[in-house]
């Protein structure tokens, strides 16, 4: 197995995730795209862990999973709040911060 096959998988997923973040208007879907990005990062971390024969990567991966869980929790909470106030979760409609 090549190092690159995993890294490329990670890269492709990352780019798909980026596309999702840019293209999606729906906040929930945007969060999902972020999850894809995070997972692609995890794949990278674990690949390097295997390559370098260390377990640091595993630790980071676990931390990322944990942080992601927290992020989803808070993120969805925010979405819920927004929805309750504005009856929409379309990100584009949240432009109060326009300069």
């Amino acid at each position, binding site marked *: 197995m090549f190092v690159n096959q995993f890294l490329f998988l990670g890269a492709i997923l990352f780019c798909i995730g980026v596309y999702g*973040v840019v293209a999606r208007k729906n906040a929930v879907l945007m969060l999902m795209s972020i999850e894809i990005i995070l997972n692609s990062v995890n794949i990278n971390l674990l690949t390097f862990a295997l390559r370098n024969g260390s377990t640091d990567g595993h630790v980071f991966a676990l931390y990322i999973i944990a942080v992601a869980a927290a992020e989803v929790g808070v993120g969805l909470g925010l979405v819920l709040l927004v929805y309750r106030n504005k009856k929409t979760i379309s990100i*584009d409609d*949240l432009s109060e911060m326009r300069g």
Partner: protein
Amino acid sequence: MSLLASESEILAPLASGWFLEHAWLIPVIPAIAFALIILIGKRLPMKGSELGVLSMISSLVLAAGAGYQWIQRTNSATEDQFVEPVIKSWSWWRSGGFDFGIGQHIDGLSILVLIVVAFISTLVQIYSLEYLRGDRRYTHFFAALTLFSGGMLAMVLADNMMLFLLGWEIMGLCSFMLIGHWWEEDANSRAALKAFFTVRTGDVGLLVGISMLYFSANDWTQEHLGVSGFSIRGISAWALSGAPNSTVITIAAVALFIACIGKSGQFPLHTWLPDAMAGPTPVSSLLHSSTMVVAGVYLVARLYPVFFVGLNILGSGGNLIVIIGGITIVISAALAFVQNDIKRVLAYSTVSQLGYMMLGLGAGAWLPAVFHIFTHAFFKACLFLGAGSISHSASHHSFDMKRDMGGLRKVMPITFTTWIISTLALCGVFPFSGFFSKDEIIDNVGHNGYNLFMIIGLIGAFMTAAYMTRATYLTFFGEPRGASAGHADHGDTHNSHDADASHDAHDVEQSHGPHESGLLITIPLIILSVLALSSGFLNATPFGESWERMKLWVEPRSVEVVEETHLGGPGESLIINLPSAEEVHSKSVCGSAQPETGICYAPQLNHAPFKWLKAMMSMAIVFLGIAISWILSTLLFTKRAPRLVGLTQRVKILGFGHKLLVNKYYLDVLYEKVIVRSIAYPVARAAYWFNQNILDGILHAIANSTRKISGWVYKNVDQLVVDGTVNNSATLTKSLGTAAQPTQSGKVSQYAALLFSAAAVAALVLVIINT
């Protein structure tokens, strides 16, 4: 300018004369006549045609005079002496230190073709006086014919490739103008376009080939002969000198041959030639059978040393020329079987015969091939004019053999006789002219070791005999059909006419039904058929050495020539011919090794000794072809007019049993369905299908896709990208001012997009910098 002639002196002991020295007048006369016809033609009593005919007659006289003097010249030389061509050249233009000449190169080959061209042109113009009488563009027609003759004659006597190219292209132009003569009809103008374009595609090879030869040969020719690398004499000598780089000369030869393929309708660029029959019949007769299409063959024969060395003729294995020639012979002969249009049969036959010429040249049979140019011109022109005569006087301008012809031998005895003579000549029946040329080609091809191609040649001969028999049968035998039976249905046949619109003047005449054509048409036919019968005796190998006049007159002698060149400026090259004693008697090394002391102008070629046995064998094949085809034709085509009386008669003439008559329908089915349909038709159809769908299809596909690509490029690249960049830069400037505002939209996804795009670009830049 330096166009003034400076008298050149040829101090060789060879005879020369006014006609040879002034052969350059031959193309000049038609050129002047062309200008006169264009300028004042319409005001003349015969609308300019008299100028055309007169100019052709004077060219013919000059050419004949030159021919006579050339014969004297060859006779005055000893048997092994190199007969110096009569070369004169003047500076045409100079550029960048290079001198480009214009001039004449008269030797046996050019004299031969000059006479053929001038002769056929004269006859065709006389014929056209009647054939096109009352045509809307009568004057233009004669102008174009005259210009064509001028161009072809100029090409034939060109002393350098530049002038050659000039003539070559003028012929292409005239071909375009004449095929599209009745351009009101879309099909005609399309055929004209196709012809010009196909030939022009091949011409790329000519441009490339000439350029390559010029730059590779120039140094050598300047040093040894004092002529430029365009000079035909120079190139020939250079090719045989052993100096040329073998890759360069091979590529140049292939490039030139591509041009020949286009011009001479060789496989796979032959498809334009049958379509070119959309032109008036005299045009088909002159340009597309006897003269213009042999230009490619002429180029090979003219620069034979280049092809000889470049393509390794006489070397082991086949070479490009024989392969193309061989394929062309069979493919086009097979196509001739499925044609209903009499001119198309003849057109495919022309392609096939050109294939023979190429085959001969490629196999080292130079003289038979050149001789075939000569004989073919007469009988093929005669056949075309015959077809024209039929359509003009009998079939109401239709060329459809199956629908509008048949049984014409009685009403058109002269046309019929000349047709039969020419057909026999085309088939190569002894003692008609085709025998002496075509059989020689086949014989020499075998003699030079190309056995496979000899067999192809014989198969071709068989097929030639067969399809010509079929055409003859359909046209002259059987019951009259359609227009030739006198009940022409105007509306129905108009589509297949080649001259409907312009021949309205003749409609009154048409009401008399089929009849023999007038004298202006039949006299050229008779003259041509006499030549078709007799011209072969000019090189009748079967009767021994003394009959081989052409070999003596036309074939360049492959003698190593020790030359002394006198550099007296353009037009004054003085050549002294000094073959040393031992060279005269030893076998020439030309073509096989590097000449040691002198210069070679022609490679040493062998001639097959004539054997009656071989001739008998090929005769047998030809007769077999005629017989089989005759039987098939009888059985096939009479089905359409099933009158028992006529049938019995015909079959009796043939000496067939009564049984066959009784079982006529049964045999019809058998032959047509079982034999012809299952064997001949599929092959021929497949070839025709290949022709129409694959080759033409590729052409169309290329044309279409080029158009599509160009459309796409135009639309997307040109209009959007290149143009768009410019347009956008203007809008960009404008929008830049307001560009900053939207970035502050407050929209998260936009921020994300910007963030990521910036990151992406930055990443890319980093990567590129670091790698």
